[in-house]
């Protein structure tokens, strides 16, 4: 298969505390596509964020490597590169399709400008970063969505990168781990964005038919067309504690039923209770759990190796 002949593998840049919708940035680190001493770089940055849980200003040092509020335990949303940084073994990540960028299939007004603006603000080309890496020594294909990029809406780039990730995994007999996060479809790509749901689901099915393990990790927020496609198709579905996970938006449902919904509606815990999530795993335990699950399927004595 010559699926990746055009892709350029770029080193993983670290960008902790990048600007996002839900946290206030006092001073952001701008260090894309460099892999120089990452630890040192974050040390220099003076950054604090306002916690959405308790409203307190939390410094980077207090939030720590996993970006968890030390006062109330609230998880801050992670960018795609931050996610990969805490998940992949150091230096093991090779990015796929790093240069892929949105076209404008419907000729939607101002879409190119919007994309260019988001690329500049976030340092990523679109709402998912994919590649291969090892997790606790276990080789896998990884994808991480980034809610700071147009709410991680799924358009052609997200669909194409994920489909290629599954196809790469089929060709190389690798498991796939995808950290889902999404507000739903990329409105500006209309029906083409809808088609990405079938495209990614079909790729997941093909990978499954080839005997591949797919672990889907649902992070805050996973909704809409992503919930209704690849995010819910893992052989194993993990969620982060308290993550919003659902299909329809809360306001849409409240509008339909003319009632307020309880606070715990559409949480990871709600999904577990209703049978749609296998396990809830804390952020600081995620890497070890993923490594263990992959080892159970591909490790010594049971798989290819």
């Amino acid at each position, binding site marked *: 298969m010559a699926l990746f002949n*055009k*892709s350029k593998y770029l080193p993983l840049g670290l960008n902790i505390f990048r600007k996002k919708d839900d946290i206030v940035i006092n001073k952001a680190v701008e260090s894309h596509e460099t892999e120089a001493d990452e630890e040192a770089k974050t040390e220099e940055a003076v950054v604090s964020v306002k916690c959405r849980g308790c409203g307190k200003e939390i410094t980077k040092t207090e939030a720590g490597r996993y970006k968890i509020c030390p006062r109330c335990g609230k998880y801050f949303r992670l960018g795609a590169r931050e996610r990969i940084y805490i998940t992949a073994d150091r230096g093991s990540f090779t990015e796929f*399709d790093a*240069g*892929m*960028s*949105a*076209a*404008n*299939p*419907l000729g*939607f*007004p101002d879409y190119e400008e919007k994309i260019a603006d988001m690329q500049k603000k976030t340092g990523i080309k679109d709402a998912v970063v994919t590649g291969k890496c090892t997790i606790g020594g276990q080789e896998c294909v990884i994808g991480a969505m980034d809610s700071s990029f147009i709410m991680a809406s799924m*358009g*052609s*780039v997200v*669909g*194409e990168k994920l*489909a290629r990730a599954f196809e790469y995994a089929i060709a190389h007999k690798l498991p796939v781990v995808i950290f889902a996060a999404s507000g739903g*479809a990329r*409105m500006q790509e*209309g*029906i*083409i964005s*809808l*088609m*990405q*749901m*079938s*495209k990614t*689901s*079909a*790729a*997941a*099915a*093909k990978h*499954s038919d080839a005997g591949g393990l797919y672990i889907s990790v649902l992070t805050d927020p996973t909704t*809409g*067309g992503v*919930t*209704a*496609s*690849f*995010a*819910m*198709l893992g052989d194993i579905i993990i969620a982060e504690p308290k993550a919003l996970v*659902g*299909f*329809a*938006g809360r306001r*849409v*449902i409240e509008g*339909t*039923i003319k009632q307020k*919904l309880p606070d715990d*509606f*559409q949480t990871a815990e709600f999904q577990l209770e*209703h*049978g*749609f999530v296998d396990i809830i795993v804390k952020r600081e335990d995620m890497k070890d759990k993923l490594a263990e699950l992959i080892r159970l399927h591909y490790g010594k004595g049971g798989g290819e190796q």
Partner: protein
Amino acid sequence: MKAYDNVKIARQLARPTALDFINHCFEGFTELHGDRLFADDNAVVGGLAWFEGIPVTVIGIQKGKDTAENIKRNFGCAHPEGYRKALRLMKQAEKFRRPVICFVNTSGAYCGVGAEERGQGEAIAKNLFELSRLKTPIISIIIGEGGSGGALALATADRVWMLENSVYAVLSPEGFASILWKDSSRAEEAADIMKITAKDLYELGVIEKVIDEVPGGAHIDFEFTANLVKHNLETEIPALMALSPEELVEQRYKRFRGFGEYNE
């Protein structure tokens, strides 16, 4: 004609329903009920029928003809059990190598508490996953509204056709306008830029065929449109049945794999 005029025609109460087409195009429809897991969803109808002497599986999302029927049909908005019933019938069709013909007419999957509790997202996702590899032909016809994932769950098919005045979109023009401009009254404007008409989607390569309606809409001369549907099925069903299950699945994979535009 503006795109929103199609939206209005597609949503008319007099618009021919899935059962109208099922009863006109097929013989001896035996309806089968239930998803075997939770309930029977009246928004989705499905079962067995004959088409030109061959057994087929037919499935439709059914809107009501009047208020009473609309309440029974939940206005054509399926719950997870509706999608699971559809999948059950499609897996049954696969087992017996029957072609599947779907008639899609929904403003979208139902958004409610029970739907979320029973996994609306998972139900749709599972349909996309299973339909993409179903080893029997699937033809889906959008006959009115093709509302987002709720329509796609019955339209991950080998051939997707649309009636001339039907629409197929990622969300309603009202929803689109309210998300993008915080103003649902700009729906007509939204409809124009969204590319939701049969003609637009044919040009985009999202569908294979546009089926004509008489001026004003299919309700004015239902037989005209229903006969065209039937004639098209007469050629397409045998053509798809001639393919091996592997060829069929591979072509369907390629059909969906090809959607998307990007720069690299």
